[in-house]
C-alpha cells in the first residue's frame, strides 16, 4: 500500500466539454518536484520547488522544447490540501489536445492516473474527512440538481453530523440512567422512574424516526423524485408527459435501461429533479400480459413520491373520485401525494369545469387540476403543484435530511432497538435486558457518529451522580 500511497496520481479534468479552462490535479509526495521538470515559471526568479502552499504561479509547460500551453499552477503543501498530500493543480486551456498532452508527459515522468474516487479515498485515508463526508463527496459529484447539491454540500460541511450529535448526546444521557440503576443500585442516588424514562425514549425515538423518514425524501432528491402518471388507457397520459417535457426539452435526458412498459424521463423544476414514470393504463381484467403490466404499474405506484392521476373532463365526478380512491388503495400509507389531472378540459364548458371542481372538492381528498394537453393549457399549474407537493421546506434545514443509505439503515436499527426498549418498559422486564436494547441502539448510532464507549457512559454517570457511599 505504501507504494500506492506515496505514488503520484493524476486526475483528468472532471468536466469535459464546455468552458475555456480545464483543471489537472496531481497528488502525492514529490508532485511539485515532478511538475518542475516540465514547467517553466514566467518569472525566472521563482523556483517552484520552493514555493509555499497556496501559491499561484504563471508559466509554461513544455516537453523537449515543444511548447504545450501557458498555464497557472496552484501549489498545495501537505497536509493542507484536499487529499492531505502535496498537490499541484494545473489550470490549462481546455483543448482536449492540450489536456491529453499534459497528462501524457506527466505519466512519462512517473505519475499514475487516478482510479475513480481515489482522490477522495486518499483524503479519507489521511483523515481529512470522516466516512459520512467522503460519501457526501461522492454524492456532490453525482448531484444532478440544485437541491441534491445543497444536501450533499451541507453534509460535507458536517451539518448532518451536527444534527446527529444532539441525538447521540440524548441517547448517552438516557443510557447512563439505565446503567446507573444496574451498576450503582446500592448507591444513595435518585433513580429515574419508568414513566419519565418512557417519555424520554419516546422523544428520542421520534427524533430518530423523523430523521429516518426524511431518507425517503432525501433519496428522492438525490435520485430524482419519482412521479408516476396513472389513469385509464387513452386519457392522454403520454401527451401530458410530452407537454411537460417539451417545455423543458433543453434539459431533458433519457435514463437508459428503463423497462419497456414504463417510460422514465427526468426534468428539472424549481431546482428539483423529477423522474416521470409513465405507466400502462389502469384497467380491471384483461389478459395475462396486461395483468403483468398492471402489476408493474402497481409496484411503481407504491414507490412513487407523487402520483398524477389522469382522468377526462367528460368523466363523472364519481368516476374521478373512484380513480383517486383506487390509486390511494394501492399506494396505501407509503406517503405518496396524489394530484388529479382532469385532461381534455377543452371538451367541456367553463361552467361545467366550475361545477365539476365544486363536486370534486367534496368527494375527492386531493387537489384536482384541469388541463388540456392538446391546447397546452393549465400545464403551468401542474408544474407549480408538483413543486409544492414536495416538502421543500425541509430543505432549509438540510441536516435533518438523510440521503445516505448506510445512515438510513443505522437509524432504522436505532429505532427498532428503541421500540424494544419501550416494549420492555411496558412488559416490566428486568432492567438488564432492557439495557441490552439500549446498548444496541447506541451501537447502531455509533456507526454514524463514531464509537460510543462504556467510558462515555460511565463519565456521564460520574459527572451527574455522587457515587461512592
Amino acid at each position: 500500500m505504501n507504494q500506492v500511497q506515496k505514488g503520484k496520481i493524476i486526475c483528468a479534468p472532471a468536466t469535459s466539454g464546455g468552458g475555456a479552462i480545464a483543471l489537472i490535479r496531481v497528488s502525492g509526495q514529490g508532485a511539485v518536484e515532478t511538475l518542475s521538470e516540465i514547467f517553466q515559471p514566467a518569472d525566472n526568479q521563482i523556483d517552484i520547488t520552493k514555493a509555499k502552499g497556496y501559491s499561484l504561479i504563471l508559466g509554461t509547460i513544455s516537453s523537449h522544447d515543444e511548447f504545450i500551453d501557458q498555464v497557472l499552477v496552484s501549489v498545495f503543501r501537505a497536509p493542507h490540501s484536499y487529499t492531505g498530500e502535496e498537490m499541484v493543480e494545473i489550470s490549462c486551456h481546455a483543448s482536449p489536445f492540450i489536456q491529453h498532452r499534459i497528462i501524457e508527459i506527466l505519466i512519462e515522468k512517473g505519475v499514475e492516473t487516478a482510479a475513480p474516487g481515489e482522490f477522495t479515498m486518499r483524503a479519507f485515508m489521511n483523515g481529512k474527512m470522516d466516512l459520512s463526508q467522503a460519501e457526501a463527496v461522492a454524492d456532490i459529484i453525482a448531484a444532478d440538481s440544485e437541491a441534491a447539491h445543497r444536501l450533499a454540500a451541507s453534509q460535507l460541511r458536517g451539518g448532518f453530523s451536527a444534527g446527529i450529535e444532539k441525538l447521540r448526546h440524548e441517547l448517552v444521557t438516557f443510557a447512563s440512567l439505565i446503567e446507573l440503576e444496574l451498576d450503582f443500585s446500592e448507591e444513595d442516588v435518585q433513580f429515574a422512574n419508568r414513566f419519565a424514562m418512557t417519555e424520554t425514549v419516546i422523544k428520542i425515538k421520534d427524533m430518530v424516526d423523523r430523521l429516518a423518514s426524511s431518507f425517503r425524501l432525501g433519496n428522492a432528491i438525490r435520485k430524482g423524485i419519482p412521479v408516476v402518471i396513472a389513469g385509464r388507457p387513452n386519457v392522454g397520459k403520454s401527451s401530458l408527459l410530452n407537454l411537460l417535457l417539451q417545455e423543458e426539452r433543453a434539459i431533458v435526458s433519457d435514463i437508459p435501461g428503463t423497462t419497456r412498459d414504463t417510460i422514465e424521463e427526468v426534468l428539472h423544476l424549481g431546482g428539483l429533479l423529477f423522474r416521470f414514470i409513465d405507466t400502462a393504463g389502469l384497467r380491471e381484467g384483461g389478459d395475462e400480459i396486461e395483468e403483468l403490466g398492471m402489476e408493474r404499474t402497481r409496484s411503481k405506484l407504491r414507490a412513487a413520491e407523487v402520483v398524477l392521476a389522469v382522468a377526462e373532463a367528460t368523466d363523472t365526478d364519481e368516476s374521478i373520485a373512484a380513480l383517486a380512491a383506487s390509486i390511494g388503495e394501492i399506494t396505501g400509507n407509503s406517503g405518496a401525494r396524489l394530484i388529479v389531472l382532469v385532461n381534455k378540459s377543452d371538451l367541456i364548458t367553463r361552467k361545467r369545469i366550475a361545477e365539476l371542481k365544486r363536486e370534486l372538492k367534496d368527494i375527492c381528498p386531493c387537489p384536482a387540476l384541469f388541463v388540456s394537453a392538446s391546447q397546452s393549457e393549465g400545464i403551468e399549474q401542474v408544474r407549480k403543484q408538483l413543486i409544492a407537493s414536495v416538502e421543500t421546506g425541509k430543505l432549509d434545514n438540510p441536516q435533518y435530511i438523510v440521503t445516505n443509505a448506510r445512515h438510513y439503515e443505522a437509524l432504522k436499527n436505532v429505532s427498532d432497538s428503541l421500540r424494544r426498549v419501550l416494549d420492555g418498559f411496558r412488559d416490566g422486564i428486568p432492567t438488564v435486558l432492557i439495557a441490552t436494547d439500549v446498548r444496541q441502539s447506541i451501537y447502531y448510532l455509533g456507526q454514524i457518529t463514531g464509537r460510543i464507549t462504556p467510558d462515555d457512559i460511565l463519565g456521564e454517570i460520574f459527572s451527574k451522580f455522587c457515587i461512592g457511599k
Partner: protein
Amino acid sequence: MIFSYDIIVVGGGHAGCEAAHIAAVMGAKTLLVTMDMTKLAQMSCNPAMGGIAKGQIVREIDALGGSSGIITDRSMIQFRMLNRSKGPAMWSPRAQCDRMLFSREWRKLLEQTENLAIWQEEASGIIIEDGVVKGVTTTFGTELRADAVILTNGTFLNGLMHVGFKTMSGGRSGDPASRGLSEQLRELGFEVERLKTGTSARVDGRSVDFSAMTEQKGDDDGRCFSYLHDRVDIKDQRSCYITHTNEKAHGILREGLKFSPLYTGRIKGRGPRYCPSVEDKIVTFADKEAHQLFLEPEGWETNEYYINGFASSLKLETQISALREIKGLENVIIYRPGYAIEYDFFQPTQLKHSLETKRVGGLFFAGQINGTTGYEEAAAQGLVAGINAVQKVRGKDPFILKRDEAYIGVLIDDLVTKGIDEPYRMFTSRAEYRILLRQDNADERLSPMAVELGTAEPGRIERLVEKYRMVDELMVFLKNCSISPEEINGFLKEKDTAEINQKIKAINIATRPQVSLEELLEQIGGSGKLSYAGSVRKTEIIEAAEIKIKYSGYLERERGIAEKIMRLEGLKIPEEINYEELASISTEGRQKLSKIKPDTIGQASRISGVSSSDVSILIMYLGR
C-alpha cells in the same frame, strides 16, 4: 546457598496469594516473598468481598480453580445477593468478611499447599540477565532465583500516606513502604506514574448507637461463592448499618478543607471518581444535603466497624468532629483515622494480555501495581499471572480470556489496551456481553478451561457435569410435559397472566415473566421423580433452567452479536508491523498503535485515540 525456584511471587496481598497458590497447584516450584506473613491477603479497605461486577469476578476466580471464593465462604459473617430484581445477569453476590479470619484462612491454605514456600523479607531488586528475569534480591542481600517473577506490590511502591498535612511513608497504615523496585524498573524504561486512593476511619462499636440507624441484614438462603460448596449457612449473621451525613457535619468538613492535602495540592496522584473521599463529595456535589454512610462489621470477635462512605485525608480532629455530628455517631470513638495513600503504578499498556511485561521476558505484574483497585480485580490478575508464569516457564501458550468469556477477560483487555487514568474498578457496564457473563454460569464458562490448565481441584468438573445433567433433565421434562387448562388456569389467574384454553407444554408457561419456575413445578405433578428434586442443589438447578428458558432470546441474540464482533479478534496484526509507515493513520492513532502493539484488529478498535477510520485503514492495509 543457592535458592532456586520456577516462579517467585513478590507480595502477599490478594493478587500475590492467588498467583502463588495457583502456580504451586499447577506443579511449579513456587516462592511467595512477603514483608509480613501475618498479614497475608489483608483487607486494607472495607471488609467485604464481591458486590456488583466484583461478585461475578470472584465466581469466575473460583470456577478457574482460584481460592478467593473458598476463603470468603470460610470467613464470611454476612451474605447478600445484590440486584436480585434487575435480571439474572445482575445478580451479584457480596459478603462481609471477618478480616482477621480471612487472612488466617489464606495463610492456612498457602501453608498446606504443596510446592509452595514462603519467605518473609522485603524484595528490593530484580535480577535480569540478557533482558530476561532470573529472580529477585532482598534487602539482606539474599539472591532468590527463578525463571519467572510476578510483582504484586500493591500500594507499597513508594507509598506515601496523608492525614491532614502529616505524611508518612508506608504501604498501608502500620506497614513500611517498599523502595528500590520502582527506581530499578524506571531505569529499565518502565513508565511509572502515581495514583491515590483513600480509606475511612474505623470506629469502636461500643460507642455507636445502632438503634438510631437503619439495619441491613443478610440473606438467609445459604448462598455462597464457591461452586465447590453446596450451601453455606452463616449462624448469627452480622448486620450492616446505614446512617447519613448532614449539613452540620458538612460544615465542619468544609472548615477542614484548608488542611486538606487534596485541596491544597499536596496530593498529586489521581483518585477514583467512583470512590471519592467525603471531602470530595461535599465539594463536587455541594447541593446534596446528606450522603449515605454504611457501617460494616470487621469480624466475629471484634467490635470494630468500618465507616464506608467516609474516606478522608482531613485532619484527625476534623474527621472526629464531623463524625460526631452524625446520627448514631454522636459519641463515637475511633480506632484509627481515615487516610489517603499515594503510590507508584505502572501503566498497564506495558503488559501483554498474559500480564507479562513487554519489556522484560518472564516478568509479570498483577494487582494494584497495574492501576486497579479492589481485592477482586487484584485476585483475578494474580490468578491469570500465576497461570501464565507457569505456562511461560513450560513453553506453553499463554492463557487469555476473551471479552465474551469472562469479566476477567474484560478487565485485562481494558488494562492492556486502554491503560488507565484513574484507579480501575470493574463495572458491569464495561462488559459488552454482560448477560452472557453471569454469576450463575461462571462454572459452565470457565471450569472446562481449568481442567485443561490443570488448576481444577478434584470434584470440580464432576459437580459441573452433575449440575448441567440435572438442568438438561429438567428442561427435557418441561418440553415434554403437557398441561391442561383445568390443571393450571387457577394458578395462572392468581399470577395475573392469561389462562390457556387447550393443553400446552409446560415450558411455554415457564417463559412467561409472571410465572416463577419453582412455583410452576409445584403446580405440576410428575417432576418429583427427577433428580433435581431430591438434590441439595435444587435451587441452583431451577435457577439455571429458568434463565435458559426465560432469557433464551436475549442470550442467543447477544451470543450472535458477540460472535460477529469477535471475528475482528481473529484478524491478527503481525508483530513486525511498522505503524510509522502508515502515514494515512492519524498521528494520535499511530502513536497509540505503536505503543500498545495490539494483537488483533478487535483490540486495535478498542484503543482510545484510534478512530474507526484508522481501523478501516489498518484493515485495508492488512488486506492488501
